[in-house]
């Protein structure tokens, strides 16, 4: 079954055509990688899914309903979570609070005046948040202020913030950028495990090692256009892709 259908999206920034007639379908329960050189429009494409940008023309449908015109919080409440390329976390709050906030959002909706009972009384929610921190290997730092984390750790924290919501669709914008090799491997293992739980993922990644060990399908974006879409084993041999990557230097 298709979970996300993108049809004929165009997006201009002034004179720059960042997305040009992009079509994409994401199948439920799969990991779909989007690769392409810097500035190809990958992050812009994700921005059109989560309500950060409105495409100039085209449609985005999630589970059969249009996402266009919805506010970011409504799209998240519908089941779409995202890890950003530049980490978006609550830098003045602790790691535990960072993960509890999305958990509250999932349980209580977009707004609740929950002003009387203390946070520390929310035992099950707190335990769940700790579990997520444990999964991404940050449990020891649960009570640290998150702004002090390294970039790789912020990424993993953001991942925990998304996972605690059990999203239907998880968007990952270069989830391992800025991570040490060991952390990258741990993160790949974690992502594989998540994929095993049946969460649909869209992964933008430069690291081909990551892409090939995760994805069931790969779309290649170059200069705002999808130039190829295929199974991982076929992508490497595609001449268009090799050209986009300057003679295949990256592959």
């Amino acid at each position, binding site marked *: 079954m298709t979970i996300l259908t993108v049809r004929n999206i165009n997006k201009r920034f002034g004179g720059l055509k960042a997305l040009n007639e992009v079509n994409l379908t994401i199948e439920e329960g799969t990991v779909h990688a989007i690769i392409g050189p810097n500035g190809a429009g990958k992050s812009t494409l994700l921005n059109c899914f989560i309500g950060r940008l409105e495409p100039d023309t085209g449609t985005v449908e999630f589970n059969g309903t249009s996402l266009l015109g919805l506010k970011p919080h409504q799209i998240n409440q519908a089941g779409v979570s995202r890890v950003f390329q530049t980490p978006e976390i*609550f830098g003045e709050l602790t790691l535990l609070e960072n993960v509890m906030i999305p958990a509250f959002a999932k349980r209580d909706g*977009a*707004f609740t005046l929950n*002003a009387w*009972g203390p946070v520390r009384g929310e035992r099950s929610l707190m335990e769940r948040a700790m579990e997520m921190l444990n999964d991404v290997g940050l449990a020891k730092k649960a009570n640290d202020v998150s702004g002090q984390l390294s970039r790789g750790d912020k990424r993993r924290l953001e991942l925990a913030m998304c996972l605690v919501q059990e999203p239907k669709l998880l968007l990952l914008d270069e989830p391992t950028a800025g991570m040490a090799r060991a952390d990258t491997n741990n993160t790949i293992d974690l992502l594989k495990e998540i994929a095993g739980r049946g969460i649909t993922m869209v992964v933008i990644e430069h690291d081909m090692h990551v892409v090939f060990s995760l994805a069931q399908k790969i779309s290649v974006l170059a200069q705002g256009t999808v130039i190829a879409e295929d199974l991982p084993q076929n992508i490497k041999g595609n001449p268009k892709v090799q050209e986009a990557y300057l003679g295949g230097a990256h592959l």
Partner: protein
Amino acid sequence: MNAKASSRNDLYLILGFIVAVALGPIIMTPFGGYPDLLQKFAIFGIFAIGFNILFGLTGYLSFGHAAFLGAGSYAAVWCFKLVGMNVLPAIISAMIVGGLFSALIGFVSLRRSGIYFSILTLAFAQMCYNLAYSVLGQPGMNLTNGETGLQLKLDDPRYFGESASESGTIPPTSMFGIEMKQIHEFDLFGMTVQVSNGYFVCALFVILAFYVSMRIFRSPFGMMLRAVKTNQNRMSYTGLNTRPYALAAFVISGMYAGLAGGLMSAMDPLAGAERMQWTASGEVVLMTILGGAGTLIGPIIGAGVIKYLENIFSSFNDQVMTGFFDFLPDWLGSAMVWITSPFVGEGWHLTLGVIFMLIVIFLPGGLMEGFARIGRLFRGSRKRGEGAADAPRVPAE
């Protein structure tokens, strides 16, 4: 961070606060405390506690909160005119009116953030001030009595009370027969302590105000407000609608301001437009920052310090200063009087400005940061070299 320990700390904090408020009149007597001043501590404490829920937690800096305080005090006086002299309905209506005004102004102002938000609140508050000062003080639609201020009259109806007392005067404000202005005196440790009934009412409300603010700080809602301050983008991509959170904080702080205004009128039943002026809005900003924005007790301490210093410095005049520098040679004495006199009396705001500058430059976290530093100094000297300085900075409370 042990849940049991932190709930025990909160219990100590609230108990300590109650004790401090209860003993306030005794503690302050040697320092020149008197009933009016103590009532001011409590009232402005409430104002600052409420302001801190907005500014300290969400980071939205309102420069218009005096409008809600002013609206509350007008509402309370109207309640004394129409309903009766009991302070409870007056205080409740002041809170409601403060809440309504802040809902309206907050709804519009929160469409912007940062400096634009601040300017919008400032503009709205000045509009309220001008309305109160002139437009709504005209015959025909006289809600505020203009520059004279709203006062009680003998022929006010007071439908649920009596218009005049038996002796033919305007009845005093009271709570179920207990007069606010009545003062009790008792001797203790060789000094005469004065307490007014009004102080007990203010004390009750400041304790309630503090307790409610503590609940909010510790609640999921309070955590969301801190998230608003930290990263609104992340919040919305996390499925949270930031606007109603900020608006709720705005209205809650507006109700606190209304409560403070209502208490002012309950202690002294008149209301003037100057309570809405931008200087009054600025004062609560100073109190909050001076004490420590975002900390639980900082703003009350800030309110107390400013009202106490105001009380001292504004009472000084050239004669007092001359007496003060009596011990110096004549020429030096008069030079000192010449230098210091702009900082006292009417000019006490100059002193306030200097103090505020010093605090913001040297203690950006306010007095609470100062206390925390002193605390660390003591702990640090006991177990030196354990990396106390590297410990993550948590807001002092």
